[in-house]
Protein backbone atom coordinates (compact mmCIF):
# COMPACT_ATOMS: atom_id res chain seq x y z
CA UNK A 1 0.00 0.00 0.00
CA UNK A 2 1.25 3.44 -0.85
CA UNK A 3 1.16 5.98 1.93
CA UNK A 4 1.12 9.57 0.85
CA UNK A 5 3.29 12.21 2.41
CA UNK A 6 0.22 14.37 3.05
CA UNK A 7 -0.77 15.21 6.63
CA UNK A 8 -1.58 12.34 9.04
CA UNK A 9 -5.01 10.71 9.09
CA UNK A 10 -7.61 12.84 10.85
CA UNK A 11 -8.36 11.37 14.30
CA UNK A 12 -12.15 11.30 14.03
CA UNK A 13 -14.29 9.34 11.61
CA UNK A 14 -16.05 12.48 10.54
CA UNK A 15 -12.72 14.11 9.84
CA UNK A 16 -11.61 11.18 7.74
CA UNK A 17 -14.86 11.25 5.80
CA UNK A 18 -14.50 14.95 5.04
CA UNK A 19 -10.92 14.45 3.99
CA UNK A 20 -11.81 11.47 1.79
CA UNK A 21 -14.65 13.42 0.19
CA UNK A 22 -12.25 16.20 -0.75
CA UNK A 23 -9.74 13.76 -2.22
CA UNK A 24 -12.40 11.87 -4.20
CA UNK A 25 -13.79 15.12 -5.60
CA UNK A 26 -10.31 16.33 -6.58
CA UNK A 27 -9.45 12.98 -8.19
CA UNK A 28 -12.64 13.02 -10.24
CA UNK A 29 -12.17 16.63 -11.39
CA UNK A 30 -8.56 15.97 -12.38
CA UNK A 31 -9.58 12.85 -14.29
CA UNK A 32 -12.33 14.66 -16.19
CA UNK A 33 -10.77 18.04 -16.80
CA UNK A 34 -7.04 17.79 -16.22
CA UNK A 35 -4.97 18.94 -13.28
CA UNK A 36 -4.07 22.24 -14.93
CA UNK A 37 -7.73 23.20 -15.27
CA UNK A 38 -8.65 22.68 -11.65
CA UNK A 39 -8.59 25.31 -8.93
CA UNK A 40 -8.87 24.68 -5.21
CA UNK A 41 -12.23 26.47 -5.37
CA UNK A 42 -13.57 23.87 -7.85
CA UNK A 43 -12.60 21.08 -5.47
CA UNK A 44 -14.13 22.89 -2.51
CA UNK A 45 -17.44 23.30 -4.35
CA UNK A 46 -17.51 19.75 -5.70
CA UNK A 47 -16.79 18.30 -2.26
CA UNK A 48 -19.22 20.69 -0.53
CA UNK A 49 -16.72 21.79 2.13
CA UNK A 50 -15.76 25.17 3.51
CA UNK A 51 -12.56 27.01 2.78
CA UNK A 52 -11.32 26.44 6.32
CA UNK A 53 -12.01 22.71 6.05
CA UNK A 54 -10.04 22.67 2.81
CA UNK A 55 -7.02 24.37 4.31
CA UNK A 56 -7.31 22.33 7.48
CA UNK A 57 -6.89 19.05 5.63
CA UNK A 58 -4.83 20.31 2.70
CA UNK A 59 -2.69 23.31 3.54
CA UNK A 60 -1.49 23.57 -0.06
CA UNK A 61 -2.18 22.26 -3.53
CA UNK A 62 0.74 19.82 -3.47
CA UNK A 63 -0.59 17.99 -0.43
CA UNK A 64 -3.93 17.55 -2.19
CA UNK A 65 -2.31 16.31 -5.41
CA UNK A 66 -0.30 13.77 -3.42
CA UNK A 67 -3.41 12.56 -1.67
CA UNK A 68 -5.03 12.08 -5.11
CA UNK A 69 -2.05 9.99 -6.27
CA UNK A 70 -2.33 7.82 -3.14
CA UNK A 71 -6.10 7.51 -3.64
CA UNK A 72 -5.69 6.32 -7.24
CA UNK A 73 -2.90 3.93 -6.22
CA UNK A 74 -5.22 2.36 -3.64
CA UNK A 75 -8.03 2.23 -6.16
CA UNK A 76 -6.13 0.10 -8.70
CA UNK A 77 -5.01 -2.25 -5.91
CA UNK A 78 -8.55 -2.57 -4.60
CA UNK A 79 -9.77 -3.41 -8.10
CA UNK A 80 -7.27 -6.26 -8.02
CA UNK A 81 -8.72 -7.67 -4.81
CA UNK A 82 -12.44 -7.43 -5.58
CA UNK A 83 -14.51 -10.54 -4.77
CA UNK A 84 -14.45 -12.16 -8.23
CA UNK A 85 -10.68 -12.04 -8.37
CA UNK A 86 -9.89 -12.17 -4.69
CA UNK A 87 -6.78 -14.10 -3.88
CA UNK A 88 -5.76 -14.04 -7.56
CA UNK A 89 -4.48 -17.61 -7.51
CA UNK A 90 -5.54 -19.05 -10.85
CA UNK A 91 -5.24 -18.22 -14.54
CA UNK A 92 -9.04 -18.07 -14.63
CA UNK A 93 -9.00 -15.25 -12.07
CA UNK A 94 -6.27 -13.47 -14.00
CA UNK A 95 -8.46 -13.62 -17.11
CA UNK A 96 -11.39 -12.36 -15.07
CA UNK A 97 -9.30 -9.40 -13.92
CA UNK A 98 -8.46 -8.64 -17.55
CA UNK A 99 -12.09 -8.99 -18.58
CA UNK A 100 -13.38 -6.72 -15.80
CA UNK A 101 -10.71 -4.10 -16.51
CA UNK A 102 -11.53 -4.03 -20.22
CA UNK A 103 -15.26 -4.07 -19.48
CA UNK A 104 -15.07 -1.02 -17.24
CA UNK A 105 -13.30 0.89 -19.99
CA UNK A 106 -15.85 -0.24 -22.55
CA UNK A 107 -18.58 1.13 -20.27
CA UNK A 108 -16.78 4.46 -20.16
CA UNK A 109 -16.85 4.53 -23.96
CA UNK A 110 -13.03 4.43 -23.83
CA UNK A 111 -13.11 8.04 -22.66
CA UNK A 112 -10.33 8.96 -20.28
CA UNK A 113 -7.44 6.65 -19.62
CA UNK A 114 -6.23 4.74 -16.58
CA UNK A 115 -7.03 6.54 -13.32
CA UNK A 116 -3.40 6.18 -12.22
CA UNK A 117 -1.66 6.23 -15.61
CA UNK A 118 -3.39 9.41 -16.73
CA UNK A 119 -1.71 11.27 -13.86
CA UNK A 120 1.72 10.60 -15.37
CA UNK A 121 1.35 12.97 -18.30
CA UNK A 122 -0.05 15.67 -16.05
CA UNK A 123 2.45 15.53 -13.23
CA UNK A 124 5.59 13.59 -13.97
CA UNK A 125 7.65 16.33 -15.63
CA UNK A 126 6.87 19.11 -13.20
CA UNK A 127 6.29 17.60 -9.77
CA UNK A 128 9.14 15.30 -8.83
CA UNK A 129 7.51 14.14 -5.59
CA UNK A 130 4.25 13.33 -7.35
CA UNK A 131 6.18 11.47 -10.07
CA UNK A 132 7.95 9.31 -7.48
CA UNK A 133 4.64 8.60 -5.76
CA UNK A 134 2.96 7.59 -9.01
CA UNK A 135 5.95 5.28 -9.58
CA UNK A 136 5.35 3.77 -6.12
CA UNK A 137 1.69 3.32 -7.01
CA UNK A 138 2.67 1.40 -10.12
CA UNK A 139 5.18 -0.66 -8.11
CA UNK A 140 2.49 -1.66 -5.64
CA UNK A 141 0.10 -2.52 -8.48
CA UNK A 142 2.69 -4.54 -10.39
CA UNK A 143 3.73 -6.11 -7.07
CA UNK A 144 0.13 -7.14 -6.36
CA UNK A 145 -0.14 -8.78 -9.76
CA UNK A 146 3.28 -10.43 -9.36
CA UNK A 147 2.17 -11.88 -6.00
CA UNK A 148 -0.85 -13.30 -7.78
CA UNK A 149 1.37 -14.82 -10.47
CA UNK A 150 3.52 -16.36 -7.73
CA UNK A 151 0.41 -17.97 -6.24
CA UNK A 152 -0.58 -19.21 -9.71
CA UNK A 153 2.94 -20.58 -10.02
CA UNK A 154 2.76 -22.23 -6.59
CA UNK A 155 -0.50 -23.84 -7.63
CA UNK A 156 1.37 -25.32 -10.58
CA UNK A 157 -0.56 -23.57 -13.35
CA UNK A 158 2.51 -21.83 -14.69
CA UNK A 159 6.01 -23.22 -14.60
CA UNK A 160 8.95 -22.20 -12.42
CA UNK A 161 10.79 -20.58 -15.35
CA UNK A 162 8.16 -17.84 -15.58
CA UNK A 163 9.34 -14.61 -13.96
CA UNK A 164 6.33 -13.18 -12.08
CA UNK A 165 7.79 -9.69 -11.68
CA UNK A 166 8.62 -9.34 -15.36
CA UNK A 167 5.33 -10.78 -16.52
CA UNK A 168 3.40 -8.48 -14.18
CA UNK A 169 5.36 -5.49 -15.48
CA UNK A 170 4.62 -6.59 -19.05
CA UNK A 171 0.94 -6.95 -18.25
CA UNK A 172 0.60 -3.50 -16.68
CA UNK A 173 2.51 -1.99 -19.62
CA UNK A 174 0.22 -3.75 -22.08
CA UNK A 175 -2.74 -2.42 -20.15
CA UNK A 176 -1.41 1.14 -20.11
CA UNK A 177 -0.61 1.08 -23.81
CA UNK A 178 -4.02 -0.46 -24.41
CA UNK A 179 -5.71 2.44 -22.63
CA UNK A 180 -3.82 4.92 -24.82
CA UNK A 181 -4.68 3.19 -28.09
CA UNK A 182 -8.32 2.68 -27.07
CA UNK A 183 -8.63 6.33 -26.14
CA UNK A 184 -7.23 7.51 -29.48
CA UNK A 185 -9.30 5.15 -31.60
CA UNK A 186 -12.45 5.29 -29.42
CA UNK A 187 -12.45 1.55 -29.83
CA UNK A 188 -11.97 -0.93 -27.00
CA UNK A 189 -10.45 -3.56 -29.35
CA UNK A 190 -6.79 -2.51 -29.08
CA UNK A 191 -6.96 -2.56 -25.28
CA UNK A 192 -8.62 -5.96 -25.26
CA UNK A 193 -6.07 -7.30 -27.74
CA UNK A 194 -3.09 -5.93 -25.83
CA UNK A 195 -4.22 -7.19 -22.41
CA UNK A 196 -5.26 -10.64 -23.56
CA UNK A 197 -2.26 -11.15 -25.76
CA UNK A 198 -0.11 -10.60 -22.65
CA UNK A 199 -2.32 -12.94 -20.62
CA UNK A 200 -1.96 -15.52 -23.43
CA UNK A 201 1.76 -15.07 -23.12
CA UNK A 202 1.58 -15.74 -19.37
CA UNK A 203 -0.52 -18.82 -20.11
CA UNK A 204 2.12 -20.07 -22.50
CA UNK A 205 4.13 -20.91 -19.37
CA UNK A 206 1.39 -23.37 -18.57
CA UNK A 207 2.73 -26.19 -16.44
CA UNK A 208 6.30 -25.54 -17.29
CA UNK A 209 5.98 -25.57 -21.06
CA UNK A 210 7.94 -22.34 -21.10
CA UNK A 211 8.47 -20.20 -24.15
CA UNK A 212 11.37 -21.08 -26.34
CA UNK A 213 12.04 -17.37 -26.31
CA UNK A 214 13.47 -17.67 -22.81
CA UNK A 215 16.27 -19.85 -24.07
CA UNK A 216 17.62 -17.37 -26.59
CA UNK A 217 20.03 -14.72 -25.37
Amino acid at each position, binding site marked *: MVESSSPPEPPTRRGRETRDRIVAAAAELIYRR*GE*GEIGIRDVKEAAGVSGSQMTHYFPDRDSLIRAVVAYRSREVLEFLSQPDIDGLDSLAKLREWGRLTVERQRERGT*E*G*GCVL*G*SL*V*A*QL*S*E*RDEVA*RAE*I*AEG*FDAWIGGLADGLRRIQAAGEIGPEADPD*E*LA*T*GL*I*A*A*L*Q*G*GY*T*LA*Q*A*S*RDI*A*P*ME*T*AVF*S*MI*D*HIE*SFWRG*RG*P*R*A*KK*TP
Partner: protein
Amino acid sequence: VTASADTLRHMPQAASSNSRLTAKGRATRARIIDAAARLMYENGAANTSFEDVRKAAKASGSQMSHYFADKRSLIRAVIAHQADAVMADHHDPAIGNLDSIAALRTWAQRIVEQQRAQNFEGGCRLGSLAAELVESDAELRADFAAGFERWEALLRRGLLAMQQRGDLGPDADPDALACSLLAAAQGGYLLTRTHRDAHALKVALGAAIDHIELLTIEAGERSIGLPEP
Protein backbone atom coordinates in the same frame (compact mmCIF):
# COMPACT_ATOMS: atom_id res chain seq x y z
CA VAL B 1 17.66 18.61 -24.16
CA THR B 2 15.77 15.88 -25.93
CA ALA B 3 16.79 13.43 -28.57
CA SER B 4 13.95 14.60 -30.75
CA ALA B 5 15.38 17.95 -31.74
CA ASP B 6 17.83 16.95 -34.39
CA THR B 7 16.04 14.02 -35.88
CA LEU B 8 12.99 16.22 -36.28
CA ARG B 9 14.75 18.43 -38.77
CA HIS B 10 14.98 15.71 -41.36
CA MET B 11 11.38 14.71 -41.26
CA PRO B 12 9.19 14.63 -44.30
CA GLN B 13 6.44 17.20 -43.91
CA ALA B 14 2.83 16.30 -43.65
CA ALA B 15 2.13 16.66 -47.34
CA SER B 16 -1.21 18.41 -47.49
CA SER B 17 -1.24 22.01 -46.41
CA ASN B 18 2.14 23.29 -47.51
CA SER B 19 2.45 22.08 -51.08
CA ARG B 20 1.69 25.55 -52.42
CA LEU B 21 4.30 27.30 -50.30
CA THR B 22 7.59 28.53 -51.66
CA ALA B 23 10.79 26.85 -50.49
CA LYS B 24 11.41 29.73 -48.11
CA GLY B 25 7.84 29.58 -46.86
CA ARG B 26 8.15 25.86 -46.25
CA ALA B 27 11.37 26.40 -44.33
CA THR B 28 9.76 29.02 -42.10
CA ARG B 29 6.74 26.87 -41.49
CA ALA B 30 8.98 23.88 -40.70
CA ARG B 31 11.03 25.98 -38.29
CA ILE B 32 7.90 27.02 -36.43
CA ILE B 33 6.62 23.44 -36.20
CA ASP B 34 10.03 22.25 -35.12
CA ALA B 35 10.17 24.76 -32.28
CA ALA B 36 6.59 24.03 -31.27
CA ALA B 37 7.22 20.27 -31.24
CA ARG B 38 10.28 20.68 -29.06
CA LEU B 39 8.62 23.03 -26.58
CA MET B 40 5.46 20.94 -26.34
CA TYR B 41 7.51 17.81 -25.81
CA GLU B 42 9.57 19.41 -23.05
CA ASN B 43 6.89 21.45 -21.30
CA GLY B 44 3.59 20.06 -22.47
CA ALA B 45 1.18 21.68 -24.92
CA ALA B 46 -0.73 23.45 -22.15
CA ASN B 47 2.44 25.19 -20.98
CA THR B 48 3.51 26.24 -24.47
CA SER B 49 2.05 29.49 -25.75
CA PHE B 50 1.88 30.75 -29.32
CA GLU B 51 4.27 33.47 -28.19
CA ASP B 52 6.76 30.96 -26.74
CA VAL B 53 6.83 29.22 -30.11
CA ARG B 54 7.23 32.49 -32.00
CA LYS B 55 10.26 33.41 -29.91
CA ALA B 56 11.86 29.98 -30.09
CA ALA B 57 11.38 29.84 -33.87
CA LYS B 58 12.62 33.43 -34.25
CA ALA B 59 9.57 34.15 -36.35
CA SER B 60 7.58 37.37 -36.60
CA GLY B 61 4.00 37.69 -35.43
CA SER B 62 2.81 38.02 -39.02
CA GLN B 63 4.73 34.90 -40.07
CA MET B 64 3.14 32.99 -37.22
CA SER B 65 -0.37 34.05 -38.12
CA HIS B 66 0.31 33.54 -41.83
CA TYR B 67 1.04 29.84 -41.30
CA PHE B 68 -1.09 29.08 -38.27
CA ALA B 69 -4.45 30.63 -37.54
CA ASP B 70 -4.22 29.70 -33.87
CA LYS B 71 -2.52 27.44 -31.36
CA ARG B 72 -4.83 24.60 -32.19
CA SER B 73 -3.83 24.50 -35.86
CA LEU B 74 -0.22 24.56 -34.69
CA ILE B 75 -0.91 21.62 -32.38
CA ARG B 76 -2.40 19.66 -35.29
CA ALA B 77 0.74 20.31 -37.33
CA VAL B 78 2.86 19.16 -34.38
CA ILE B 79 0.92 15.89 -34.06
CA ALA B 80 1.47 15.15 -37.77
CA HIS B 81 5.10 16.12 -37.38
CA GLN B 82 5.66 13.82 -34.39
CA ALA B 83 3.97 10.95 -36.23
CA ASP B 84 6.34 11.60 -39.16
CA ALA B 85 9.26 11.65 -36.73
CA VAL B 86 8.28 8.29 -35.29
CA MET B 87 8.09 6.81 -38.78
CA ALA B 88 11.45 8.30 -39.70
CA ASP B 89 13.01 6.68 -36.62
CA HIS B 90 12.17 3.35 -38.20
CA HIS B 91 14.24 4.10 -41.32
CA ASP B 92 17.24 2.51 -39.74
CA PRO B 93 19.33 -0.12 -41.53
CA ALA B 94 19.84 -1.95 -38.23
CA ILE B 95 16.14 -2.71 -37.90
CA GLY B 96 15.49 -3.11 -41.63
CA ASN B 97 11.88 -3.97 -42.29
CA LEU B 98 11.21 -5.24 -38.75
CA ASP B 99 10.61 -8.64 -40.27
CA SER B 100 12.61 -10.89 -37.97
CA ILE B 101 12.84 -11.51 -34.23
CA ALA B 102 16.40 -10.16 -34.30
CA ALA B 103 15.21 -6.95 -35.98
CA LEU B 104 12.43 -6.55 -33.42
CA ARG B 105 14.92 -7.01 -30.57
CA THR B 106 17.15 -4.35 -32.10
CA TRP B 107 14.13 -2.10 -32.52
CA ALA B 108 13.32 -2.51 -28.81
CA GLN B 109 16.92 -1.80 -27.88
CA ARG B 110 16.90 1.40 -29.96
CA ILE B 111 13.78 2.60 -28.20
CA VAL B 112 15.34 1.96 -24.79
CA GLU B 113 18.60 3.68 -25.81
CA GLN B 114 16.72 6.69 -27.10
CA GLN B 115 14.91 7.06 -23.78
CA ARG B 116 18.13 6.56 -21.85
CA ALA B 117 19.78 9.33 -23.89
CA GLN B 118 17.12 11.71 -22.59
CA ASN B 119 17.31 10.45 -18.99
CA PHE B 120 13.94 8.70 -19.38
CA GLU B 121 12.19 12.04 -19.40
CA GLY B 122 9.34 12.92 -21.71
CA GLY B 123 8.32 9.47 -22.93
CA CYS B 124 7.12 8.84 -26.47
CA ARG B 125 6.86 12.02 -28.51
CA LEU B 126 3.58 10.95 -30.04
CA GLY B 127 2.22 9.07 -27.02
CA SER B 128 2.99 11.75 -24.45
CA LEU B 129 1.31 14.41 -26.54
CA ALA B 130 -1.64 12.05 -26.94
CA ALA B 131 -1.84 11.53 -23.19
CA GLU B 132 -2.15 15.27 -22.76
CA LEU B 133 -4.47 16.12 -25.63
CA VAL B 134 -6.36 13.04 -26.81
CA GLU B 135 -9.56 13.96 -24.97
CA SER B 136 -9.58 17.62 -26.01
CA ASP B 137 -11.63 17.20 -29.18
CA ALA B 138 -12.61 14.69 -31.84
CA GLU B 139 -10.34 16.09 -34.53
CA LEU B 140 -7.19 15.94 -32.42
CA ARG B 141 -8.18 12.50 -31.22
CA ALA B 142 -8.47 11.36 -34.85
CA ASP B 143 -5.04 12.89 -35.60
CA PHE B 144 -3.51 10.77 -32.84
CA ALA B 145 -5.39 7.68 -33.98
CA ALA B 146 -4.01 8.21 -37.50
CA GLY B 147 -0.47 8.56 -36.13
CA PHE B 148 -0.74 5.37 -34.09
CA GLU B 149 -2.28 3.57 -37.04
CA ARG B 150 0.69 4.45 -39.28
CA TRP B 151 3.02 3.08 -36.61
CA GLU B 152 1.00 -0.07 -36.14
CA ALA B 153 0.82 -0.59 -39.93
CA LEU B 154 4.59 -0.50 -40.08
CA LEU B 155 4.88 -3.16 -37.37
CA ARG B 156 2.16 -5.22 -39.06
CA ARG B 157 4.00 -5.14 -42.38
CA GLY B 158 7.08 -6.73 -40.82
CA LEU B 159 5.03 -9.42 -39.11
CA LEU B 160 3.11 -10.18 -42.31
CA ALA B 161 6.41 -10.55 -44.16
CA MET B 162 7.53 -13.02 -41.50
CA GLN B 163 4.34 -14.98 -41.93
CA GLN B 164 4.52 -15.00 -45.73
CA ARG B 165 8.07 -16.26 -45.49
CA GLY B 166 6.91 -19.01 -43.17
CA ASP B 167 8.81 -17.75 -40.11
CA LEU B 168 5.57 -17.06 -38.28
CA GLY B 169 3.01 -19.80 -38.01
CA PRO B 170 -0.28 -19.57 -39.90
CA ASP B 171 -2.17 -19.27 -36.60
CA ALA B 172 -0.36 -16.07 -35.65
CA ASP B 173 -2.46 -12.94 -36.11
CA PRO B 174 -0.20 -10.12 -37.38
CA ASP B 175 -2.90 -7.50 -36.69
CA ALA B 176 -3.18 -8.49 -33.05
CA LEU B 177 0.57 -8.88 -32.61
CA ALA B 178 1.28 -5.46 -34.13
CA CYS B 179 -1.31 -3.91 -31.83
CA SER B 180 0.24 -5.67 -28.82
CA LEU B 181 3.73 -4.53 -29.77
CA LEU B 182 2.62 -0.93 -30.06
CA ALA B 183 0.71 -1.15 -26.78
CA ALA B 184 3.78 -2.65 -25.06
CA ALA B 185 5.87 0.23 -26.38
CA GLN B 186 3.34 2.86 -25.27
CA GLY B 187 2.84 1.32 -21.84
CA GLY B 188 6.58 0.79 -21.50
CA TYR B 189 7.28 4.43 -22.38
CA LEU B 190 4.77 5.54 -19.77
CA LEU B 191 6.15 3.34 -16.97
CA THR B 192 9.73 4.21 -17.82
CA ARG B 193 8.93 7.89 -17.82
CA THR B 194 7.33 7.43 -14.40
CA HIS B 195 10.17 5.40 -12.92
CA ARG B 196 12.97 7.24 -14.71
CA ASP B 197 14.70 3.99 -15.55
CA ALA B 198 14.86 1.51 -18.42
CA HIS B 199 13.45 -1.53 -16.66
CA ALA B 200 9.73 -1.43 -17.51
CA LEU B 201 10.25 -0.41 -21.14
CA LYS B 202 12.80 -3.19 -21.64
CA VAL B 203 10.66 -5.80 -19.94
CA ALA B 204 7.43 -4.77 -21.70
CA LEU B 205 8.94 -4.86 -25.18
CA GLY B 206 10.85 -8.03 -24.32
CA ALA B 207 7.68 -9.83 -23.25
CA ALA B 208 5.76 -8.73 -26.36
CA ILE B 209 8.60 -9.94 -28.60
CA ASP B 210 8.96 -13.20 -26.58
CA HIS B 211 5.31 -13.80 -27.32
CA ILE B 212 5.89 -13.34 -31.05
CA GLU B 213 8.96 -15.56 -30.88
CA LEU B 214 6.81 -18.32 -29.43
CA LEU B 215 4.77 -18.26 -32.62
CA THR B 216 7.78 -18.54 -34.89
CA ILE B 217 8.67 -21.74 -36.63
CA GLU B 218 12.29 -22.74 -36.83
CA ALA B 219 13.58 -23.82 -40.23
CA GLY B 220 13.98 -27.42 -39.15
CA GLU B 221 10.39 -27.64 -37.96
CA ARG B 222 8.77 -26.39 -41.12
CA SER B 223 8.75 -29.51 -43.25
CA ILE B 224 7.84 -31.83 -40.43
CA GLY B 225 5.31 -29.59 -38.71
CA LEU B 226 5.50 -28.37 -35.13
CA PRO B 227 6.83 -30.92 -32.67
CA GLU B 228 4.89 -31.58 -29.50
CA PRO B 229 5.64 -28.84 -27.02
